[in-house]
């Protein structure tokens, strides 16, 4: 599963891993905005710069280059379908721009996710002001993705043990069973929350201080994003 691999990568001990999640999220946001503002004429320069950022980030975090760059390509089938429309509409530069921007954005996001454990990422998002209900939804989806995927694997094994060959009907049935079980589990989780005097959203605990390395990283990243936005103008 992708999330298991990402989980393993995110538990590293490099300087990039140790930075506060807020610093990485602000840097990511700034670089994504700069990339989205880049006109097609200056895209190659911007792409080269951002690729260098991603590669140096990967080296610094001691993450596997090829695996991560390949995983970022997961967005290409989606953006390629839109890029094809632009291409056939007679605007190949926009098509190429779309593909490059989507791939670079995915690489940057993946770099942040692969260097920040999900609990830290959620805390960072909360501290940056993302509505609590949204972080709660992300938290629950991520938490129970593991449980549900484990259940799905057990069902697949149970099917294989009885010489199950798969197929649409079997898969659809399995999805229906998983859905029903997830629904029952959701009710039990709600009970577990209520049993501990649960409120709609969990109250925040102690915040980790935003230290000098975090400030320095954020300032550098925002400056780099600003430089990128200015220099990529034709």
């Amino acid at each position, binding site marked *: 599963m992708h999330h298991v691999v990402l989980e393993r990568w995110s538990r590293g001990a490099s300087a990039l891993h140790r930075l506060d999640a807020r610093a990485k999220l602000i840097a990511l946001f700034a670089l994504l905005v700069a990339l989205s503002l880049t006109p097609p004429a200056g895209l190659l320069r911007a792409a080269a710069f951002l690729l260098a950022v991603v590669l140096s980030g990967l080296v610094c975090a001691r993450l596997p280059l090829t695996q991560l760059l390949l995983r970022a390509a997961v967005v290409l089938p989606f953006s390629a379908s839109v890029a094809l429309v632009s291409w056939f509409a007679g605007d190949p530069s926009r098509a190429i721009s779309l593909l490059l921007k989507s791939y670079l954005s995915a690489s940057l996001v993946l770099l942040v996710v692969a260097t920040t454990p999900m609990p830290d990422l959620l805390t960072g998002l909360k501290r940056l002001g993302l509505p609590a209900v949204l972080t709660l939804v992300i938290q629950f989806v991520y938490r129970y993705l*593991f449980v549900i995927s484990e259940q799905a694997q057990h069902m697949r094994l149970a099917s294989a043990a009885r010489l199950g060959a798969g197929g649409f009907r079997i898969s659809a049935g399995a999805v229906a069973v998983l859905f029903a079980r997830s629904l029952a589990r959701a009710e*039990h989780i709600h009970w*577990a929350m209520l*049993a*501990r*005097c*649960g409120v709609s959203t969990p109250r925040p*605990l*102690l915040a980790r201080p935003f230290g000098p390395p975090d400030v320095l990283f954020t300032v550098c990243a925002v400056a780099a994003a600003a430089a990128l936005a200015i220099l990529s103008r034709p």
Partner: protein
Amino acid sequence: MTPLVRVRNLHYSYDNGTQALRGVDFELYPGESVALLGANGSGKTTFVLHLNGLLTGQGDVEVAGLPVNATHLQQIRRKVGMVFQDADEQLFMPTVLEDVAYGPANLGLPPEEAVHRALHALEAVGLKHLEKRAPYQLSAGEKRRAAIAGVLAMAPEILVLDEPTTYLDPPAQRELIRLLAALPQAKIIVTHDASFALAAAHRAVFFQQGIIAAAGPVPEILHRFRWTVTQHSE
């Protein structure tokens, strides 16, 4: 002696018409450990869910002299700590520490105090070294102990454990018995496990089709209802 829990003539039917409880009378005294035995579907779990108002049937349920109703729900839930059968459903926060501190934070304690209580509870169950772990990274035994810590952090007067030995291997079961013996709270333990009931409880009640068919010392009840594997196979 005044009972901590007093239940009189409790009836409960599920929405599908299943009559789960048909007039249950029960008392629990301070410091006592009671095992709830009985076949699947005999009403044990339904019964314990009434003790902190997660289900509401007809009849009288009192905890520490307070009737279980909407007015006293928060007070009751502070007093009754519920450990659910599937620890995955109880551990929903991103890290072990945040999960254990969830209850104290809901009680309105300041974050420092909630964290202090959580660390103390984790120490009591021997999991302090795992405070920063995500729940999905724990073993079944560790998850069970983390779930108990989450309840202990709320300083309850009564512990309710629903099938606490599920998914636990014998060493983890022994560890759980030791842990429960060291806790001063009165305990209600829903279980199918005869040896666990013998080791962890002073008294047993036997549920049969929604009523308490018998109550008494654990060995006597086990013998009377032939509640051991060897007797069943004879």
